[in-house]
C-alpha cells in the first residue's frame, strides 16, 4: 500500500515526453483540432525560438465560445490572443506530491517541464497523476 511517506516517482517518470506544442502565431482554430486529435485538454505555447510562453487549453477555447463570437469571427485570432501566461512549470526531478500541490494551489490542470533553454520537454497533467493513484490501487 502506498502511503504519504513512501518515496514515490518523480515528475519526469510519468510526464508526457516531447509534448505536442503550438506556436503563439498559430490560428485559434488549430488549437481545437490539436486538442481533439491528440485527446488532450491543453498544450504548451512556444515562440519562434521554441521557448515556452504560455499554455492554451479547453478552458480558453470555451471562454471564447462564451464570449459569443461567431466561429467565423475566430479566424482573425491567434493563440497569443487567448493563451494563459505565464505557464506554470515544474522541475522534472520534483515529486508527484509536489506536482499535485502545485496544481491544486494554482488551479491549473497541467504543469510544463522546460529545459535550460526554456523549451518544453514534458507535460504532467492531472490525468497522469490520477493514473498513478489508480495504479497504486493495485497494491491495495
Amino acid at each position, binding site marked *: 500500500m502506498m502511503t504519504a511517506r513512501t518515496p514515490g516517482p518523480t515528475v519526469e517518470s510519468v510526464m508526457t515526453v516531447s509534448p505536442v506544442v503550438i506556436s503563439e502565431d498559430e490560428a485559434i482554430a488549430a488549437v481545437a483540432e490539436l486538442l481533439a486529435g491528440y485527446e488532450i485538454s491543453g498544450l504548451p505555447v512556444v515562440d519562434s525560438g521554441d521557448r515556452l510562453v504560455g499554455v492554451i487549453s479547453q478552458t480558453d477555447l470555451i471562454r471564447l*465560445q462564451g464570449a459569443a463570437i461567431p466561429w467565423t469571427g475566430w479566424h482573425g485570432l491567434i493563440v497569443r490572443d487567448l493563451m494563459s501566461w505565464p505557464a506554470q512549470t515544474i522541475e522534472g526531478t520534483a515529486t508527484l506530491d509536489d506536482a*499535485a500541490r502545485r496544481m491544486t494551489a494554482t488551479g491549473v490542470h497541467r504543469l510544463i517541464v522546460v529545459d535550460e533553454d526554456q523549451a518544453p520537454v514534458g507535460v504532467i497533467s492531472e490525468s497522469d497523476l490520477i493514473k498513478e493513484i489508480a495504479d497504486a490501487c493495485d497494491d491495495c
Partner: protein
Amino acid sequence: MTTADGAVTVGSLMSSDPIVVWPDTSVAEVAETLDRAGISGVPVVDWSGYLVGVVSQSDLLRVRATEELWADWSRLSAHHIMSRPVLTVTVGTTIEEAVQLMQSRHVHRLVVVDDDGETPCGVLSATDLVHAMTGRPAES
C-alpha cells in the same frame, strides 16, 4: 437537436449513458474509473440512481495534495471528496446557456438530468464542446 429558433442544445453534444460511481465507491476505484474511461469527472448517484455529487480529477488531486488526507486515502470514498450541489442542465438547455454556466461557475462538466431533475442521463464536458468546434464527435 435544436430549439424552435435553431439554437443547438445540450442533447446533441452530450455523452449519453454516463459512467457513474456510488457514494461509497473508494477513492482508488474512482481514480481507476476515470483513468480507464479517459474522463475527467464522474457523477455520483445514490442507490435510487439520483444524482448526489460529482467527483473530478481536481477533487482527487486535492486529496493527493493534502498530507493528512493522502496519508489516509485508502479509507476515503466518493462522498468524502465529491463536489455538491451539482450543476445540472437538461437535454433542452441551449449550448450557449451551458457554456455560460460552465464559465461562470468554473467547471469543466455539467451533468444532464432527466425530467425528474435528479437522474443523470448524460454529461456535457469541455471535451465535448471542443470536439464540436472541430466538427468531429467526442469518443464516449
